C-alpha cells in the first residue's frame, strides 16, 4: 500500500496545528553552512550534454586568492603574503613529471599478464559477491583506485571501462551514464581527467551513486587540488596517478563506508553534536575571543565523532556540507592527529577547488575526543595557530566545556538527546531523521556515539559482501538503508514527491518534505495515516523545543 501525493499536503496538516512558531525546527536567520542543495547539482550532472560537461571543467575564480588579496588590500606593506599564491607549491612538481613518466611506462609493461590470468582474477573471492565496487581510472584507462582487490591486476577491466566510455563519447557524441542489469547497477561519471565507476547491488538509486562518485572525486581533489590534477594529465595523459595519491586510498575507502552508513550524505546535511545551548555558546566565544585578531584565519571548526560542535568563519564565507563531510572523513581516518599537532594542506573543493587552505589540526586535549581545525590561507601561520589552540583548550577546560562535550559523546543518560525516542515518548516511532533545509543540519533518533562508529568500521572490515541472512533486530544503519528509496523519490527532479506514506506488515514509513524541512519516520507496522500524522506533529514539536540543543542556531564570525 503506497500513496504518493504531490498536492498541497502542507495546508492540510498545518490545519491540525503545526509547531507554534512560523519557523520550522532548527531554522535560524543566518546559517553557518551553505544550504545549497547538492541534489540539483547531481541531477544536472546527470542531464548535462557532452559540451556542457567540457565547459564546466574550466574552474571558476579562486576564493583563496580572493581572501589573500583582500588581506593584502588592508595591509599593503605586508609583501610576504602577496607572494604566497596557492599554486606555487605545485610548480616545481611539474618539472619532475616528465622524468617520472618513463618509469611508469616500464612498470606498466611488467604488469602485463596473460589474458587468462586476468579473467581468473575477476572471479577471485577478493572481488566477487561484493555489494558495491568502486573503480577510478584515468581517461587514458590507467587504473587509479579500486575499492577491493589490486588495481594493477584490474588493468584489463579498466581498459574495458575506458573503451565503453569513449565509444559512446566519440561515436555517438553522447555520455554513458549507467548500465542496469537485473540485480546490478553500473554508474559512470566522467569528471575532468578521471573516470569513476560504481557497480552496485545495493538499493541505492542512480543519483545517489553519482553523488557518491562525486564525493570520491572531491576526495581526490581535496588532496591534490583540481589545478594540479588537471595539469598532471594535460602534461602526461598516461600518468600513473597512484604515485601522487599514495596514502590517500584509505581516505576513499573510509569515505565509502561513511557514505553507506551516515544519512548525512543521503540528505546533504551535517550532524551537530547535541549540547546545552550555554555550553555551545561558551565554546564559540572561546574561539572568537582567541582568534578574532588572527587575520588570515578563514574557518575555525570544532568537531567530534563526525559531528559539528561549532564553526566560526570569516565574514562572507560559508562552508558547504560536502566540504565538512570531507573534513570529518579526514579526521576520522587519521590517527596521527591524536599524537601531534598537524599542519596540513587541505583543499575544500566546494570552497575553492583550485588551491589549498592550510590547516592546524589537533585534538583539543588527551581526555577529550574533540578535534579542532584552524584553516588559514597563510602557510607560515603554524605557530600563532598553535598558540591559539592552546589558549582555546585552556578556556574550554576552565569553563567546563570539555566535560559537556564528553557527556554528549559518551551519551550520558541524563540528557534528553541521548535517547530521543524515549524522551519524546511516542512508542510507535521506531526511528526518525530530520533535516532543516535552510541550515543544512540533520538530527536523527540515534545520535552517534564513538564506540558504535568504531564497531561499524570493524564489522565492515570483514568484507562488504552481499549478505543473505535475515536481520532480526534493525540497527540504525538498516533504517537509513530503508529510507534510500524514499529519499530518491523525494529528490527526483522530474516529478518529486512531497509526502510518501507506505505501510506494510514490516513497518510503516512516512517521508515528508516541505520548503523548510525533510522528515523520514519509521513507525510500527500497519499504522493508520491520521495516527501517523498526529505522531509526526508531536515529534516536530519536540524537535522545536529541543532545537537550541540539537542545532547550531547562529552563524558566528571572527
Amino acid at each position, binding site marked *: 500500500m503506497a500513496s504518493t501525493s504531490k498536492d498541497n499536503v502542507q495546508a492540510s496538516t498545518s490545519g491540525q496545528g503545526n509547531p507554534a512558531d512560523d519557523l520550522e525546527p532548527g531554522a535560524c536567520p543566518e546559517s553557518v553552512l551553505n544550504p545549497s542543495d547538492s541534489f540539483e547539482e547531481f541531477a544536472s550532472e546527470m542531464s548535462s550534454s557532452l559540451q556542457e560537461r567540457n565547459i564546466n571543467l574550466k574552474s571558476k575564480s579562486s576564493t583563496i586568492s580572493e581572501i589573500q588579496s583582500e588581506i593584502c588590500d588592508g595591509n599593503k606593506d605586508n609583501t610576504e603574503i602577496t607572494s604566497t599564491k596557492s599554486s606555487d607549491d605545485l610548480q*616545481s612538481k611539474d618539472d619532475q613529471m616528465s622524468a617520472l613518466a618513463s618509469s611508469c611506462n616500464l612498470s606498466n609493461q611488467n604488469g602485463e599478464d596473460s589474458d587468462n590470468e586476468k579473467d581468473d582474477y575477476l572471479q577471485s573471492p577478493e572481488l566477487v559477491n561484493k555489494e558495491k565496487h568502486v573503480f577510478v581510472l584515468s581517461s587514458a584507462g590507467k587504473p587509479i583506485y579500486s575499492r577491493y582487490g589490486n588495481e594493477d591486476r584490474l588493468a584489463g577491466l579498466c581498459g574495458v571501462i575506458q573503451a565503453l566510455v569513449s565509444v559512446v563519447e566519440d561515436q555517438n557524441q553522447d555520455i554513458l551514464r549507467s548500465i542496469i542489469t537485473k540485480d546490478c547497477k553500473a554508474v559512470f561519471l566522467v569528471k575532468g581527467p578521471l573516470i569513476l565507476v560504481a557497480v552496485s547491488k545495493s538499493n541505492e538509486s542512480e543519483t545517489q551513486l553519482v553523488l557518491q562518485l562525486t564525493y570520491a572525486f572531491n576526495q581526490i581533489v581535496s588532496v591534490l587540488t583540481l589545478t594540479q590534477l588537471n595539469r598532471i594529465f594535460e602534461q602526461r595523459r598516461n600518468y600513473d596517478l597512484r604515485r601522487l595519491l599514495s*596514502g590517500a586510498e584509505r581516505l576513499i575507502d573510509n569515505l565509502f563506508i561513511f557514505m553507506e552508513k551516515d544519512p548525512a550524505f543521503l540528505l546533504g546535511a551535517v550532524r551537530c553534536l547535541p549540547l546545552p545551548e550555554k555550553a555551545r555558546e561558551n565554546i564559540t566565544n572561546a574561539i572568537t575571543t582567541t582568534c578574532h585578531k588572527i587575520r588570515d584565519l578563514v574557518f575555525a571548526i570544532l568537531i567530534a565523532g563526525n559531528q559539528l560542535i561549532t564553526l566560526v568563519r570569516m565574514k562572507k564565507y560559508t562552508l558547504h556540507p560536502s566540504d565538512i563531510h570531507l573534513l570529518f572523513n579526514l579526521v576520522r581516518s587519521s*590517527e596521527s592527529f591524536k599524537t*601531534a599537532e*598537524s599542519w596540513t594542506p587541505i583543499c575544500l573543493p566546494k570552497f575553492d577547488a583550485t588551491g589549498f587552505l592550510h*590547516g592546524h589540526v589537533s585534538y583539543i586535549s588527551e581526555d577529550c575526543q574533540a578535534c579542532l581545525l584552524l584553516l588559514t590561507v597563510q602557510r607560515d601561520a603554524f*605557530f600563532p595557530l598553535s598558540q591559539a589552540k*592552546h589558549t582555546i583548550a585552556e578556556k574550554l577546560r576552565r569553563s567546563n566545556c570539555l566535560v559537556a562535550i564528553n557527556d554528549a559523546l559518551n551519551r550520558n543518560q541524563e540528557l534528553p538527546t541521548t535517547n530521543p525516542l524515549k524522551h519524546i515518548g511516542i512508542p510507535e516511532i521506531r526511528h526518525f531523521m530530520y533535516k532543516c533545509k535552510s541550515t543544512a543540519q540533520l538530527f536523527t533518533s540515534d545520535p552517534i556515539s564513538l564506540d558504535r562508529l568504531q564497531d561499524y568500521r570493524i564489522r565492515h572490515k570483514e568484507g562488504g559482501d552481499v549478505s543473505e541472512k535475515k536481520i532480526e533486530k534493525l540497527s540504525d544503519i538498516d533504517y537509513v538503508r530503508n529510507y534510500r528509496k524514499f529519499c530518491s523519490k523525494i529528490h527526483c527532479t522530474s516529478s518529486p514527491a512531497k509526502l510518501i506514506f507506505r505501510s506494510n506488515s514490516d513497518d510503516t514509513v512516512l517521508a515528508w518534505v516541505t520548503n523548510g524541512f525533510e522528515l523520514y519516520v519509521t513507525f510500527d507496522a500497519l499504522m493508520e495515516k491520521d495516527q501517523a500524522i498526529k505522531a509526526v506533529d508531536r515529534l516536530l514539536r519536540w524537535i522545536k523545543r529541543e532545537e537550541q540543543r540539537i542545532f547550531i542556531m547562529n552563524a558566528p564570525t571572527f
Partner: protein
Amino acid sequence: MSRCDFKIVLLGSEHVGKTSLVLRFVNSTFNSGTPYQNTIGAAFCAKTMRSNGKDFNIGIWDTAGSERYEAMTRMYYRGAHAAVICYEPCCLESWARLRHWLQELRTVEEECKVYLCGTKKDLLDSGMVKREVPEDIVATYSQGLRGHFLTSSKTGENVEELFQKIVDDCVADAKLMRNVEEMRVQLLKEEEAYKAKHKEYCNC
C-alpha cells in the same frame, strides 16, 4: 608556550618510519597494533632536553614522505638547525630518495646540520629483512655529515642518542647559540610588551 630553541626536521621517503621515530622519542611509545598511516602534510612535536647543564626546547617537524607533499616540505627545512634524513637499510628506493634530500639541503640550507638515520634496526637484527643498502656506501656518505645512527623505534635503541647528539652539537655551535640567545631575549621582550598591553586592555 614559548617558541623552540632548536628546529629539527625529519626527512625521508614514505613508510621509513619518521612518525614512529618521533613518537618513540617524544612519548616513549611504539604502537605495533595500529596499521601504517601516512602523515598528511606535517606534524609538529616539542620536547625539552638537557645539554651542558641547561634546558632547551626543541621543536621537531615530522614531514610527510609522500611525493605529493614534496614541494611543501621545503618550508619545513627552511631555517632548520638540524635535519635528520631517514632511510630504511632494507629498501634501496628509500636510499635513493635520501640522496635527493641531501642535495636539496646542501643547496638550500647550507648551515643546517645533517644526520643520517637508518630505521627499523630491530627488523634487520632479527634477520626478518635483508640489508639492501651496503654499509660501506652509507659510511662514505656520512663522512661529510654530522653523524649516522641506526635506530629502532620499536625497542628505542639509539633514538635518544640521536637527538641528544643533535642538541649537543647545536649547543656546541657558538654562532647558532648566539642567535638562539638573541631569539630568547627578543621573545621575552615581546612577551612583556604583550603583558603590558594586555593589562591596559583589561583595565578599560
